[in-house]
């Protein structure tokens, strides 16, 4: 956004008007929620009635309140905060919110822009004012040494509040459909972006870094509690299971791409390998292998087979690098799919039933706990997908553990060194080829485990689930979320799996929107949604303020560690 700011002169002369602008803009946005948005009462759960805010109208009122609060903060600014930046983000988000809803949710859905009533135009004016307020605010240098110093127990309270908020937001978002869902997402992006953008984001990151364990625990608690908010309904839980499988696989890919820097465009084949192993050794009537070991053994075999494939694919391909590696792995991804397509007994051994795949894979059963049935736990109903969700939660916890242990280890350092400068790494005594192979094998093994569970969740396995597009989506999740990070990839995977599920109306334009999203991201935030400081610096080396801030934060963290 830095390119879209005003000159220092303008800011110096008009800076004093910023708080007023922000508050007036915020008030207009707030007011717009009470007005009528559409003459047609069928869109957005009926936003035609005045003084009866509902859904998207409530969201925009939240944005208005945020703008007013930031305006007040502008008057008495703490040294570590920059409400101006927050206002700019909020202004852009409000404008995007209004335009998107006006043009598509009302204009396109009702067939005529004439259905537009006074509410959204008022909000647009408010949004522009908020943006202006942000733009005329003089740029300030943040002083992170003034961060509020909380006692450690209060810091944990901060984390708990954050996590509770997260749980609430996710549960609420999942209950929404189509345009209201988009409206909520835009509001969330705007308000969270604005609040975090003021400098609170850096502070929360600092608090989180000081309390890694409680943070991790709280995050898993939230994830664990999530199925209990769903009243036994499986609609959202089935999406959630798909997200976790996707995220676990993306985290495996993150080792290969994010840590070792090897571009793999055929990664979905390893998930497929696991899934096929899981299916072939299952109790399904169509299973092609007679041996039916317990599922834990199947998981182990699935991961080993995938890792072996990783080694087989890796040893010839890892001698090439960069673009060539991408092309070769892309080829291997297709070879996998075509091989599964053809191992039907006619063209080769009967292993995969060809295009029909292996259907009828029964539900898992651990010590009498049938994953296919509903269970009642402490008065809460947990359906089939909720059962699998909890199992998958264990899987992803394991994957995260493996990833972060590797990331902090000697091996992880070796991988990053290879990514940064292969020759220098070799001079340091890093076995470059060996470590690259290991990255391939470990990533593949994690995807393989996820695959064996996926076979049971989906109840069938067929070649068309493992097309190139899936590999591209996995890579996109890693890049979109933030290469080399755990949280980023989780966020990226959730967004990429959730959006298509919630936006069935625009499904035909899914790839178009996806491409657009990637282009916008690469323009404004190439380091990904959740970026490690390292990557942020990489993409914004000329941003002196960021460099200074980072150095200050390093000092603070070093002090905190010394304590």
């Amino acid at each position, binding site marked *: 956004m830095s390119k879209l700011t005003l000159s220092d002169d303008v800011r110096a002369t008009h800076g004093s008007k910023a708080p007023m602008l922000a508050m007036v803009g915020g008030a207009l946005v707030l007011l717009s929620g009470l007005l009528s948005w559409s003459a047609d009462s069928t869109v957005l759960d009926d936003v035609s009635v005045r003084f009866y805010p509902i859904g998207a109208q409530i969201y925009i009122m939240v944005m208005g309140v945020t703008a007013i609060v930031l305006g007040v903060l502008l008057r008495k600014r703490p040294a570590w905060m920059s409400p101006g930046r927050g206002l700019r983000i909020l202004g852009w988000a409000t404008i995007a919110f209004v335009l998107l809803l006006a043009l598509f949710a009302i204009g396109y859905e009702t067939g005529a822009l004439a259905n537009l009533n006074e509410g959204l135009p008022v909000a647009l004016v408010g949004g522009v004012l908020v943006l202006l307020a942000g733009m005329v605010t003089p740029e300030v240098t943040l002083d992170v040494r003034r961060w509020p110093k909380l006692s450690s127990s209060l810091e944990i309270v901060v984390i708990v509040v954050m996590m509770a908020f997260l749980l609430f937001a996710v549960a609420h978002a999942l209950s929404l459909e189509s345009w209201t869902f988009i409206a909520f997402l835009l509001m969330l992006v705007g308000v969270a972006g604005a609040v975090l953008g003021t400098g609170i984001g850096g502070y929360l990151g600092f608090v989180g870094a000081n309390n890694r364990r409680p943070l991790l625990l709280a995050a898993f608690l939230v994830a664990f509690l999530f199925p209990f908010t769903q009243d036994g309904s499986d609609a959202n839980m089935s999406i959630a299971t798909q997200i976790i499988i996707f995220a676990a696989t993306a985290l495996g890919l993150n080792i290969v791409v994010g840590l070792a820097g090897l571009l793999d465009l055929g990664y979905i084949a390893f998930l497929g390998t696991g899934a096929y192993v899981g299916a072939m050794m299952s109790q399904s009537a169509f299973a092609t292998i007679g041996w039916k070991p317990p599922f834990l053994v199947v998981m182990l075999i699935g991961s080993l087979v995938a890792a072996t494939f990783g080694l087989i694919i890796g040893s010839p391909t890892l001698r090439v690098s960069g673009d060539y590696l991408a092309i070769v792995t892309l080829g291997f991804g297709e070879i996998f799919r075509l091989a599964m397509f053809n191992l039907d007994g006619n063209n080769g051994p009967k292993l995969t039933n060809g295009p029909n795949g292996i259907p009828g894979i029964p539900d898992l059963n651990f010590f009498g706990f049938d994953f296919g049935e509903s269970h009642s736990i402490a008065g809460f109903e947990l359906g089939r997908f909720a059962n699998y969700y909890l199992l998958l939660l264990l899987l992803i916890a394991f994957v995260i553990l493996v990833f972060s242990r590797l990331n902090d280890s*000697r091996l992880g*350092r*070796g991988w*990053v*060194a290879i990514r*940064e*400068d292969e*020759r*220098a*790494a*070799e*001079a*340091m*005594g*890093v*076995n*470059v080829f*060996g470590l690259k192979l290991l990255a391939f094998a470990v990533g593949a093994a994690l995807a393989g485990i996820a695959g064996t569970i996926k076979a049971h969740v989906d109840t069938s396995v067929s070649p068309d689930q493992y097309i190139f597009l899936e590999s591209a989506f996995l890579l996109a999740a890693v890049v979109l979320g933030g290469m080399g990070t755990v949280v980023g990839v989780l966020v990226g995977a959730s967004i990429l799996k959730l959006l298509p599920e919630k936006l069935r109306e625009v499904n035909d334009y899914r790839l178009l929107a996806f491409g657009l999203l990637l282009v916008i991201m690469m323009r404004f935030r190439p380091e990904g949604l959740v970026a490690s400081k*390292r*990557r942020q*610096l*990489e993409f914004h*080396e000329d941003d002196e303020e960021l*460099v200074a801030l*980072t*150095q200050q934060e*390093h*000092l603070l*963290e*070093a002090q905190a560690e010394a304590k």
Partner: protein
Amino acid sequence: MSAMLEVKDLEVAYGKIKAVKGITFDVQEGEVVTLIGTNGAGKTTTLRTISGLLRPTKGSITFMGKDLTSVPAHEIVSLGLAHSPEGRRIFPKLTVEENLLLGAFSRKDREIDSDLQAAYELFPILEERSKQPAGTFSGGEQQMLAMGRAMMSRPKLLMLDEPSMGLSPLMMKRIMSTVTTLQEQGTTILLVEQNAQAALKRATKGYVLEVGNIVLAGTGQELLASDDVRKAYLGED
């Protein structure tokens, strides 16, 4: 006493072009040996071949009695031979500490931490900025990091490729005096330098390279006094 490093009739070629045309030299334990010469003389190529990043077309390299010509680069480091490459080649996005730990990549013992402290003692600025990305460092600080990083593998022989390149006179002095400190601490050093004066002053032995051949050899003092060297490399008439 047999030499710590013995290079015999070494020939290295990039494709058809021979960069090193049959050179022979040795480094005894405890020495500071310097290779000097102009651009393209083959100094860097020689170091890269010794550390296994390039393969010779002819000749032998023996380090502590072991032939290095077929040992992979990553194993050469664990034999006790560290290479601080030309242009420093630090990892700019990694922190100072991560860079140093990468220097110790070939080791798995428990004394890495104490060596980290030793590196910090050698260059206190590295400790002050241990959590900072190395790319934000100045050239001189990066050179300190590169040397500290090379020392982290506990080398018996440290090869430094142009440590003073692009540094201010003051920083150059600091770096070159560290070379002496390291020698006093018992590290044998093979130093490649364009700054012949500074290198020869500290060297027990020197070799002058010209387009892939050794044209002159002698003790540091001898070379410093030699007319040929003074004319060609020290800019004196």
